[in-house]
């Protein structure tokens, strides 16, 4: 059953069209992440799903019921906010029971529900405290408790981790994921952090300028980005994209970076049937930084030896776990992920291995992936 269906949804404020015909179907039990840069409309979309904002057109269905005219409290949803939105004058316990109080749930039942949730989230010792006496992580937990206690059809998370410091964010990320696996809840989660999207989602909806650019599982989004925006938004460092020319020789299509230059790079494409119609034309080549490595690297699962090119090194950024190398391929800038102990000297040239199985080609006009 579709837990949430969004049909032809649009939203405009005066002259500004924030959402342009959104269609999404989210299955029960899915962890869907809406990801995109700020201003892409993801939070507006979430607020419309919650009923806190009204769409200009289109419908929202929750659990098979059109809820356009249903107030937030009757939509069978719970929401976790970026600022946690804990009621400052209430204790943790009161924060959690406030919703049940509004719905006139009997006291005994409230007690039981609070006890369950407090145990699940390990916040029992905090129940008597006020939000101001809690740390950021604890507040986050209480905010989740308030949502969990409702046991709704749909959980909505609005950038819940962006107020936490980096270490805590990683911890809470895992905790939310674990929680999802344990209770099998249906979650719609909004974030601008593509790492959160990749790590937690069962499906990702990448949004940009009020349009869903791609809606697919994380691997597909990463491996086959639907267009240049998705390619450049997902991944850190992002996918290298560069102008290139598609040519053909005896063994099939060849993508040429910096065609005509003395240092042009020629890469043979494997299984790119769709690309044949682009032979002789300009394309945009996308290559993930991890597909460019030090010259003696053997890529896992590769059938033959990798393509090795010698390229000038411009800058080296050691991160500890790996080294990011800025280099030029056929004159085009690119980033490579090499082993941490590999430190080619800037200004020199070094050999790099390319994993050509994972190249992406985009149409330079439409910016769409050439499938």
């Amino acid at each position: 059953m579709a837990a949430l269906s969004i049909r032809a949804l649009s939203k405009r404020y005066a002259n500004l069209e924030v959402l342009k015909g959104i269609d999404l179907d989210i299955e029960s039990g899915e962890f869907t992440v809406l990801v995109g840069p700020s201003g892409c409309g993801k939070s507006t979309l979430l607020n419309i799903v919650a009923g806190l904002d009204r769409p200009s057109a289109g419908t929202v269905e929750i659990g098979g019921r059109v809820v356009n005219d249903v107030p937030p409290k009757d939509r069978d949803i719970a929401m976790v906010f970026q600022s946690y939105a804990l009621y400052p004058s209430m204790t943790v316990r009161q924060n959690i029971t406030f919703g049940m109080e509004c719905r006139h749930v009997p006291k005994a039942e409230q007690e039981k529900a609070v006890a369950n949730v407090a145990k699940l989230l390990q916040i029992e010792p905090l129940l008597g405290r006020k939000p101001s006496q809690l740390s950021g992580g604890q507040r986050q937990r209480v905010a989740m408790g308030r949502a969990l206690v409702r046991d709704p059809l749909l959980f909505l998370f609005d950038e819940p981790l962006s107020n936490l410091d980096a270490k805590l964010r990683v911890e809470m990320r895992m905790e939310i994921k674990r929680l999802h696996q344990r209770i099998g809840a249906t979650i719609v989660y909004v974030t601008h952090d593509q790492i959160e999207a990749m790590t937690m989602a069962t499906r990702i909806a990448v949004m940009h300028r009020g349009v869903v650019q791609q809606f697919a599982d994380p691997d597909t989004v990463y491996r086959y980005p639907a267009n240049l925006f998705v390619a450049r938004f997902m991944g850190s460092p992002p996918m290298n994209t560069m102008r290139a020319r598609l040519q053909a020789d005896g063994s099939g299509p060849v993508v040429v970076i910096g065609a005509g230059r003395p240092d042009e790079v020629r890469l043979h494409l494997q299984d790119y049937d769709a690309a044949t119609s682009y032979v002789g034309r300009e394309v945009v080549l996308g290559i993930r930084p991890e597909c460019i490595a030090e010259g003696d690297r053997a890529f896992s699962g590769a059938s033959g030896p990798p393509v090795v090119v010698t390229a000038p090194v411009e800058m080296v950024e050691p991160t500890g776990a790996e080294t990011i190398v800025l280099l030029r391929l056929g004159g085009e800038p690119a980033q490579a992920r090499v082993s941490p102990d590999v430190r080619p000297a800037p200004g020199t040239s070094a050999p790099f291995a390319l994993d050509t199985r994972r190249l992406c080609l985009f149409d330079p006009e439409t910016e769409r992936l050439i499938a």
Partner: protein
Amino acid sequence: MRDRTFAPSRILIYLIVSLVAAAWLAPLAVVVLNSLRANEEIAQGSMIGWPQHLAWSNYAAAWNGFCVAETCAGIRPYMLNSALVTIPATILSTLLGAIAGYAVSLWRFRGDSWIYGIVTLGIFLPQQMRLLPWTIVLRDTGLMNTLTGLVVIHTIQGLSFTTLFCRNYYVAIPQELIRAARIDGAGFFRIFWRIILPLSPPILVVTVIWQFTHIWNEFLYGVTFTTGQQQPVTAALIALSAGVADIPQHGVQSAAVMIAALPTLLIYLIGGKYFVRGLTAGAVK
């Protein structure tokens, strides 16, 4: 080591400040001193002078013996009138202002900023301009020359300021709090009562002090819309000075002024620290 020498400019500043303070405090000093001088003493000497001996009887006379408008009960009944106007009007205008401020700051609705603008416009309308409309309203509602009429006027007029104060305090409350409560199933008044009001004491103290002081000290409406026994103390004080054409009773009058000023002074002394804090406070974190 702090520099303890005074630069000439600093001395000049202190001089100016002292002069301004003296000019400001002089009327108060005269009233305080006269309230403790016997009438004969003032009549023989001048309005300015130290009490020869402390005449506390002025206060007793002012409180419940002196004749105002042919009734010799001092200013006590008029103090009661003022209290009966000020206390309900303060509470009502503060509460309504809090609700109005909450509505315009945290609930977006069509025309909200217009409504807020019109309500606060009242701050800038001169009091005299409002006399005629109020006359018509009081006449048509039969509230002319009643304390209830004054309560109505002060409650409604007070809304401009109380709404402004509360709105400016509430805009700092995150919208997400309201959203969370709406999803939890709370409505307009439950959110106000359970979430917003418990956050409000700092601003409520400010508005209460402000309203109490202004309504208590208000003179124009009191003297225009009430007569005789219905007057608040500010209006009655004028009657007091007008009724003593033959022999000036400066001592008793001064004492009456002191008594009349006491409630607002007490309110400020009790709530003053909250007042300053509340005016400068951002809001809830």
